[in-house]
């Protein structure tokens, strides 16, 4: 096979959820597309890398040092919602039930994957609470084994700081992932959060 084709297949196959078979199908699809389509795709990928950074405050994805939620003056500084991934913020925003700030952990505790609190943005969260006017921290990690352990860990770590710590209600069974829930369920879970 031509080297260029083989290279693209190899690169695509490195993406999560894409096997060699799918990678080769995508490659041959791109071969049949006009040059502009390929150019738009590669430009979009480069833009993501060049323009998107992580917010210095909450670690969300951002186009500048501060993300849109940290910049928004109408949001409530007293409330921080902690999520595992930036994509979780989109889900909560769609539910339109939350007007506070966010904090993105970039993962969850998982000893099996070598992920401890030091690999997450826990220290930065502690810093925000110590230096700000935060009154309540809502833990919105996934309602699965690892997300639950992460929430319990944060609760124990945050409690001595005198801040109110709540956990989103489990309107959903264990083993779920926030990403796949509808807005309604997420909205209910946020409204019905409980003290830990």
């Amino acid at each position, binding site marked *: 096979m031509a080297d260029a084709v083989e290279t693209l297949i190899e690169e695509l196959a490195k993406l999560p959820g894409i096997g060699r078979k799918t990678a080769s199908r995508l490659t041959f699809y791109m071969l049949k597309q006009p040059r502009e389509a390929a150019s738009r795709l590669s430009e979009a990928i480069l833009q993501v890398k060049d323009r998107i950074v992580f917010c210095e405050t909450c670690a969300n994805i951002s186009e500048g040092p501060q993300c849109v939620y940290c910049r928004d003056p109408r949001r409530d500084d007293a409330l921080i919602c902690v999520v595992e991934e930036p994509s979780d913020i989109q889900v909560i925003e769609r539910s339109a039930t939350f007007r506070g700030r966010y904090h993105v952990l970039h993962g969850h*505790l998982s000893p099996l994957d070598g992920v401890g*609190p030091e690999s997450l943005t826990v220290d930065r969260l502690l810093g925000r609470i110590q230096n700000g006017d935060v009154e309540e921290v809502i833990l919105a990690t996934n309602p699965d*084994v*690892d997300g639950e352990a992460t929430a*319990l*860990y944060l609760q124990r*770590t945050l409690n001595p700081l005198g801040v109110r710590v709540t956990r989103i209600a489990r309107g959903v069974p264990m083993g779920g992932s926030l990403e796949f829930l509808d807005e309604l369920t997420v909205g209910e879970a946020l409204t019905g959060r409980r003290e830990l």
Partner: protein
Amino acid sequence: MRLTEVGLDHFRNLASVTLEVSPAGAVLVGSNGQGKSNFLEAIHYLARFRSFRGTRHADSIAFGAQHFRVEGHVVCGTGQSRRVAVAADRRTRRVSLDGQTVARPADAAGSVLAVLLAPTDLAIIGGGPDQRRRYLDGLLTSTSRRYARALPVYERALRQRNELLRNWPPVAGPELASWDETLIETGMVIVLARAVIAERLARRFTDVGAQVAGAVDRLGYELEYRPSVPGSADPASNAESVAASWRQALTESQPRDQRQGWTTVGPHRDELLIQLGGHRLAQFGSQGEQRTAAIALRLAEAELLESESEHVPVLLLDDVFSELDEDRAGRLLKWLGDRHQKFVTTPRPLPQLGNGLVQWRVDDGRIGPRLAAA
């Protein structure tokens, strides 16, 4: 509950066929490797929608075929009849009830009730405690959705906790305790369900054991749940007090857990004690006693299924008689009577199983024609 017709299509080495089944059942005679057990596997598929061998669905597809299909017509004691089918290709499995594909296999659960007795059951009695835990897990997973959900969650939390203990100490302090709540919450579902089912099995196990053993083992066959978590053996015990003693046990065992590098308390350390006259059969049982106990356990399970569903399950007896001495085999037959529809595999004809049981020959995957009555 009785099957009236069984249809097979590209299942393992069995030739595609539709068989009419008599209310009493059938004896399948053939030498090893001809496909007798595959027929039992097919019927078991109608009850549990997966293989009792623990293999993938694709492994049950006949060589060179793209899919398999098993269909059973079943009539309940009430006279109601249903058509259950399981089909699978290399990607998906479909379960259908009266021609309609069900959204989740659980929706068709219980349409066919079957209990398998197989030579491999001996490992439950003679093997380590993990074998008996796996037996309970299999039984409870297929009968309780709550248990089926809790078990993998418990196992995940346990593996995470053990990984922390293996690399002790962790970077941050309260990390270990973060896993405990899920461990206890899901573990409670497991131990309480095990306590309940063990209690329900125990009396039946003793009864059936006594009848199959006859005068030979006058000392009683006994089954008892011995949970690792203190106080969780009693099905009536209060959930909160069990959780509290569990928390305390985890705290107390922490120095030992750290030293050994894994969690030493919890249902993953439970024992289902199976004894004859106060002696553990796993260590002290003879082959005959262990086989009797294995049969008694499965038949107790069948009685339990019957009492919970009010349907008499179909019995699948995979080469059970050839390993039993004549006396035990005779008493087993007597106990079995004709309450259950039975499918029995055997390398040689079993004339004792006369009453209404047709004998089929299984030869290189072809079932039938009938043997002349022996």
